[in-house]
């Protein structure tokens, strides 16, 4: 049973409630957090309600669920939602992480100013991300893409943690906006050849793009996505922005916002520009490896707990690019699964870091030690996240990392796959060293009185940690969607 207009509601509801909360902030005050958590949770429920029908339709060979609302007739743009095996899992994880961040904020942000407006921004941010994944046409894709930007910018520069927050917000905005505009240029040029923005029609009309223009358009779109994903030379905004934002927002930025770029690669580049993807495969693999290694090495050098995690995100984006760049079914499957797994692990790690910051008031790793005895729940959850990202079975990220590199082998890129696997050593290195420094060893005097975080803060952490274990033991839950999606994508792209 699908709720009528489920996709529309799931997308618009958070923003609508967000606006109401903002307008009525005087009357809502402290209740804002709960109202917004419930709203976000209902969005999750709406997306979940579409899961079964989407699978059934795929298995019966029917078309995916499409909602169309007429919008701009003169240039033939509809406001529509495309719910298929690719968009559903990504939007689900976005909604879940947003909901948990919202719940986490209730305790974490309780002493902050202007709470209703904080939650309003958070919900609009969520709408932007969910909207990107469900968009059926490229203009709408761009609109939601930019809709993410405003609230996230405001969240960073209004509730940021240091004095540099305005400068950092500015940098974040300009970088992302520039990437988005390049993407827009690409989108418009696609339209000028194919005369359609519709994502369901575009793969069929891809032939209309002349072969001398295709690499240009491909590059423009790729630049847009890479800025969002913070791939190597375009990454500089990320460590600043992610360490500056309040922790729940960092969890959303690192956990799910970056994935919108990855989703864009899957949704647009693999379907429309498959041949270019194969052509560019080697370059992209090199870039992916550089991103992995660079992010990992930089993470090792950090002493700020959130900055370390931010650099780790850059490194992990390298994994996702690697999988897509192989253009093999296994690699794409791995990348799509890693979108989910990294979202869970990184949101978990950021929330654990937030819990530590909340209880100790410190961010510097050097001043921490032996915290596992003081904060057992946070410590254990954090270790789960760390081991998972480091690729230890049977935790969730093991599966996706394994698939990504096997994808490299499947595509015959043996050398790249070996270098990739070797660079996971760096990931394991900085993560384990991080765990060692923060959680083990003697407890310093200054941390003698530290207590475990309040339960409200731990709920989200526990949920994410158990998700990590559950998905590690039963990776099939998401693979049921992702395997067919990867098959379709690699078939469209013409890869191995």
């Amino acid at each position, binding site marked *: 049973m699908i709720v009528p207009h489920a996709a529309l509601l799931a997308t618009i509801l958070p923003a609508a409630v967000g606006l109401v909360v903002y307008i009525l902030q005087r009357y809502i005050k402290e209740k804002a957090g709960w109202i917004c958590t419930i709203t976000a949770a209902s969005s999750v429920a709406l997306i979940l309600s579409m899961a079964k029908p989407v699978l059934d339709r795929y298995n019966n060979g029917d078309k995916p669920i499409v909602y169309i609302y007429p*919008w*701009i*007739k*003169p*240039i033939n743009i509809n406001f529509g939602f495309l719910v298929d095996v690719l968009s559903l899992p990504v939007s689900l994880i976005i909604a879940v992480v947003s909901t948990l961040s919202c719940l986490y904020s209730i305790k974490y942000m309780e002493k902050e100013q202007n709470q209703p407006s904080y939650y309003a921004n958070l919900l609009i941010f969520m709408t932007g991300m969910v909207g990107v994944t469900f968009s059926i046409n490229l*203009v709408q894709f*761009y*609109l*939601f893409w*930019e*809709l993410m*930007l*405003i609230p996230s910018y*405001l969240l960073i*520069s*209004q509730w940021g943690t240091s004095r540099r927050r*305005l400068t950092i*917000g*500015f940098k974040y*905005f*300009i970088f992302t*906006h*520039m990437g988005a*505009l*390049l993407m*827009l*240029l690409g989108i*418009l*040029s696609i*339209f*000028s050849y194919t005369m359609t923005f519709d994502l369901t029609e575009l793969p069929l009309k891809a032939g209309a793009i002349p072969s001398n223009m295709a690499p240009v358009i491909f590059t423009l779109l790729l630049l847009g996505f890479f800025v969002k994903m913070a791939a190597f030379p375009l990454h500089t905004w990320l460590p600043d922005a992610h360490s500056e934002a309040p922790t729940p927002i960092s969890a959303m930025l690192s956990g799910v916002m970056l994935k919108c770029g990855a989703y864009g690669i899957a949704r647009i580049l693999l379907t429309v520009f498959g041949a270019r993807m194969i052509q560019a495969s080697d370059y992209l693999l090199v870039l992916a490896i550089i991103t992995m290694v660079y992010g990992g090495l930089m993470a090792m050098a950090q002493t700020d707990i959130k900055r370390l995690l931010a650099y780790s995100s850059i490194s992990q984006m390298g994994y996702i690019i690697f999988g897509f760049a192989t253009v093999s079914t296994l690699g794409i499957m791995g990348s799509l699964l890693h979108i989910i797994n990294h979202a869970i692990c990184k949101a978990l790690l950021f929330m654990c870091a937030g819990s530590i910051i909340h209880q100790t008031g410190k961010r510097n790793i050097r001043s921490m030690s032996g915290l596992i005895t003081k904060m057992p729940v946070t410590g254990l959850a954090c270790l789960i996240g760390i081991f998972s990202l480091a690729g230890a079975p049977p935790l969730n990220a093991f599966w996706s990392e394994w698939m990504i590199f096997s994808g490299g082998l499947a595509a015959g890129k043996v050398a790249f796959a070996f270098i990739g696997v070797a660079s996971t050593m760096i990931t394991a290195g900085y993560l384990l060293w991080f765990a060692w420094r923060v959680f083990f060893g003697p407890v310093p005097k200054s941390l003698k009185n530290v207590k475990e975080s309040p339960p409200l803060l731990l709920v989200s952490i526990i949920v994410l940690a158990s998700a990590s274990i559950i998905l590690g033991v039963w990776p099939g839950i998401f693979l049921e969607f992702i395997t067919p999606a990867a098959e379709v994508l690699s078939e469209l792209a013409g890869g191995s």
Partner: protein
Amino acid sequence: MLTPLLDSLIFFALTTPAAGFVGRKIGHEKTAVAAYVTSALIILLLFTGLYGSGFLRTEVTLAAYGGPSTPEGVSVETDMLTAFMTMLFLGIGVLTSVFSVQEIGRDNVTGYYTVLLGMITAMVGVVSSGDLFTLFIFWEAMCICSYTLVAFKKGKWEAIEASYKYLIMSSAGSITILFGLSFLYGLTGTLNITYLTLSLANAQTNPVTYIALLTLMVGFGLQAGMFPFHTWLPDAHMAAPSAVSAVLSGIMVKTGVYGLIRVLLTVFTPFYGSWQFSLALFAVLTMFVGNFSALLQDDLKRLLAYSTIANTGYILLGVAIGTHRALAGSLFHVFNHAIVKAMLFMCAGIFIKSARTRSLKDLAGIRRSMPVTGTIFIIGALSMTGLPFLNIFWGELMIIQAGWEANLGLLSLLMVINLVFSAAYCLRMIQAVGLKRQTSVSKKAKEAPLLTLTPIVVLVVLSVVVGICPAPFQTLVEAVAQVLPSV
């Protein structure tokens, strides 16, 4: 006889002093004059609305008044473009007239409103003219009114200096136009736009035609704020009362754009190849200069003025691309920019009136003391950034798209680069007004009264409505663009 609309406008403009006289007798001069002018404009706006929709229904492209037009005679003719521009002028005019009530002082209220209405009348005259001679007469009337309005705060040296600079530059521009017109008349023996088009299309190529083309481009471009003739604009906008800045930036600059569209795309269509490159070059330089200069400003109104220059660049780029979609994009941008820039100038006026400073540094954090104006200003600035679900995005989208379709991808790319710069200064404004810590000046500011807030609320609602459902407006500008020949 001119068009009924123009007749009534002239009538109302001439009788405004009488309303002021009566008002003075009963001791409420300001209320009386403001009410008189505002209601006159509202009535005429509604009238134009009907008139415009009539055009949409019957698809009349040209209507002549005062008998059939002849090559020798002067005439007033209206088409969709006229109706479109008129609606824009009157709409912004109404809101400015309401806004002015608080903005201007007690002195010389009647004079202010008379000149304001006179200026709007002259602008409507410019867009209704069927021949270039009539256009020129209204043009001069408009310019004279605007000099007066810029110098309205006559006690301040700044206003007098800016007005003087504007007077000199704009007169030079007008003379250049007249010069060009005399060449055209010498070549063809007519200034009627329809006949002129026909005779130029048939005429042998004559070097004098190119001189006429260049002079007209410079003359109209000057009023539109085209680089390198833009230097009057920041000074004038900065020194004028904010209500006047809203009119200047929102609509008066657009008459220059109108002049360029009318002359280049009607009369000089056959010469497209020769003006396209130069106009595109002017447009690109204008955007770069406008955006870069805006980045460096600390004076809020000066920043907005430079942003107007940059936006003129976008509009001219659309005209230079010259296809139907580009032209529709330009017209849409004219519409959107008028709304947003009028809104921003009005918000700036409210800030300045309350905080008594124009410096962005001192205005920091003013949103906390003036929540409504501050929020509206931020929405306006976001729209200026070209963010989706707000109106300006759609016009820009159409122009960029048209560039690709016309195989002028380079122009689209240059415009996109400029959008990043414009995002940078818009973000500076947002940071200053919304996010920075309050200064001692901005703490003392008080929210404006309801009457002053009404126009900006109307504009912001319009901006969001156009942003969320652009379809009807897009249909309108497409229909308007159909009137003009494209290349």
